[in-house]
């Protein structure tokens, strides 16, 4: 690697970015699912057949339409308060995507910044920042989430911020190691000699080069966060009603698994479907953006 000239390397990287391989069917399906969910989230009030919070005594625990006692009034059935599950899933998609992408945006920003700084400056700065990373990695994060959410409120904003502030270590580690290897290459030395200031150099030259890995981590991280939200709801510390969340639906439905399976089944399937899609897309992106690894 050391004898590769800077220019060829840069061009090779760019080439790889442009050289998109065929979309594999799984990633394609994943994108369709993700896009559908995103559209549904944006147009929730238009798409949802019912008000997601409106209870209906007469329609309590009505099963999905295709079952024997089901009715087409509620395609996916109703929950224990007679609320339409499809409508709740539709509105829940907003929270899932907001928390997932919002959390990743914050985590990504912090992580990339820490990684850039740590990798570029090295030395004591690096040692300190990596100690922070290692500290966060050593604590099972769910305990931190639970404590913070129990202490403060269980609002969406707080959830996003907390996830963002704790979940950035993966970004930082990867960006740091990429920056370190980039730094050792000659072209950075050149730009330093030309006299660019450090921030300019970091963001103009380093950032584009780590972008690929960051996108891959981000995609997979959204999936992790969506499952995390479900787990927090399960433990009773998730975003609370009247906000509808998939994790909350799944958590509320768990007591009905044996008696009214559709309560927990559909949110469970939806969460799994979205996370599957994100993982497929992430794997594909990794193949595209990071040809060294073999997915």
């Amino acid at each position, binding site marked *: 690697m050391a004898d590769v000239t800077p220019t060829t390397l840069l061009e090779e990287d760019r080439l790889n970015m442009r050289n998109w391989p065929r979309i594999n069917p799984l990633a394609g399906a994943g994108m369709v699912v993700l896009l559908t969910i995103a559209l549904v989230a944006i147009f929730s009030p238009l798409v949802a057949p019912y008000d997601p919070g409106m209870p209906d005594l007469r329609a309590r625990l009505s099963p999905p339409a295709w079952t024997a006692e089901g009715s087409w009034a509620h395609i996916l059935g109703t929950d224990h308060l007679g609320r339409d599950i499809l409508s709740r899933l539709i509105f829940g998609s907003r929270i899932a995507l907001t928390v997932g992408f919002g959390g990743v945006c914050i985590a990504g920003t912090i992580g990339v910044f820490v990684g850039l700084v740590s990798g570029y400056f090295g030395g004591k700065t690096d040692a300190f920042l990596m100690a922070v990373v290692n500290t966060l990695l050593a604590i099972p994060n769910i305990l931190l989430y639970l404590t913070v959410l129990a202490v403060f409120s269980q609002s969406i904003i707080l959830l996003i911020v907390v996830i963002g502030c704790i979940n950035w270590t993966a970004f930082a580690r990867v960006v740091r190691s990429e920056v370190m290897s980039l730094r050792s290459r000659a072209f950075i030395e050149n730009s330093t000699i030309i006299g660019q200031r450090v921030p300019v150099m970091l963001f103009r030259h380093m950032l584009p080069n780590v972008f690929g890995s960051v996108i891959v981590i981000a995609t997979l991280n959204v999936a992790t966060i969506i499952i995390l939200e479900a787990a927090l709801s399960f433990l009773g510390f998730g975003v609370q*009603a*009247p906000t509808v969340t998939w994790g909350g639906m799944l958590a509320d439905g768990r007591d009905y698994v*044996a008696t009214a399976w559709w309560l927990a089944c559909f949110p469970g399937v939806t969460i799994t479907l979205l996370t599957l899609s994100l993982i497929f897309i992430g794997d594909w992106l990794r193949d595209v953006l990071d040809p060294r690894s073999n997915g």
Partner: protein
Amino acid sequence: MFKRMKTGASALALLIGISGAAFAQDREIVVAQGIDMPGFDIHDHRNTAVEAVMINMFDYLVMRDEKGVLQPALATDWEVISDQAIRFNLRKGVLFHDGTEMTAEDVSFSLDRVTKDPSVQLNLFYKAISDVEIVDEYTVIVRTHKPDAILLNRISNVGSGIVPKHYVEKVGWEGFATAPIGTGPFKFVEWRRDDRVIMDVFPEHWRGRAHWDRLVHRTIPESSTRVGELMSGGVDIALPVPEQELARINATDGVETKPSPTSRVMNLFLNTKEGSPLHDPKVREAVDLAIDEQGLIDLVMGGMGVPTRASIVPGITDVPMELFGTYLYDPERAVELLKEAGYGPGELTIPLAGPKGRYPRDAELLEVISVMLNQVGIKTELSILEWSAFQSRYWGIQNIDGMVLIGNASPLGDGYQQTYRFVCGALWSEMTGWCDERFSELVLAASTSTDRVERPKQLGEAYHILTEGRPILPLFQLENIVGMSSAIDWTPDANESLWMYRAHPKGN
């Protein structure tokens, strides 16, 4: 557990060739609840579910039977010597689990701490007692600071357990908390935190030997897991069971469900202070009329519960039962009242807060109440918090914004308990900003009255003033469901106790 125990026991019987009679005696009963013990310091907890377990190891002087009637226990009889003192004759020959005999010394020692030490949680119920005098080895006199109509209620309640003085003095209350000794039908063996409490039968128990050789109390927080254990025979009695599992359990051979009414009433506390829209009695009445209590019970609680207009349940002394079993619901009138108060549809927004995971279906109740209020044109700012977060936020005096959902139990079994905190200056009066002179007078009079004719009238009028004043909107009495093995003969009682001395295997 039945199944497994029997096979284990029969294997053992084969092995050492013991007789069939001895084999029939080898019985274990497993009870599962969602909560764990905080330890066995009988004076430092405030939880009926905890007391329900402890009662298997301790006895009180006077204890309630399954109908809620006070019966002699460690005291054989008692005599009211003045309106501030009762003399108790103690039962002779009662043994503690370590084999020593219970005497007046132990009774005095046991009650002394909870009446005098303000740092223990149950002091609250006992501080009315001034002293416990030892007359002789088997006689004590319990005195109160002021005339007290409910002294017997106090000492037949959580924290009334009699413990051995010599043992506590040796190991301290800290030591006692992990290795308790009492006079109850079962003695402590082992406590694995968050898992189980194991108790063995105490054969020398003064009532006679219990029907079980071993009593295990398990902690299973997930209700679906708890029901799963019940259905697969892992536990014999499980509570509470969620309402939707009722049909499934009853359809399964070998397990059944029984209703278990509680003394807990779900209430909305309202902020009636100046500046709050609920300061206007018309708005409070509109809120009352907007909520369909029976609808809440049917929709949210699966039909379990009884609507009420006061925080009272059957079995509580000196309360106006005409307020129980009834509710007000008139959405049209609610809209009119709001108009009279100057609010058109959607013009009034009231914060509505409550916990999640504290009471059965608490979050769902709040959501549906919010919808009911919306339907008469009141908007709500709903905030539901996990219980511990809720506790630290809404605890204290100034913190009720609009309406808060709280469930109140009446372990003392007397009408005084749900009224004295609304006396002007008391906690709930400060919290809600509601203060009524006549009400306070009546409650204070009732608190020191031992007049069995006047007292119900005083408390009755007080409850009516409270119901009309509406600083608190009682919704309904909570009813739990107990799931249990059909092989066991046991009925949940009104005290929510899990006293397994009363349970026995069917056919015995």
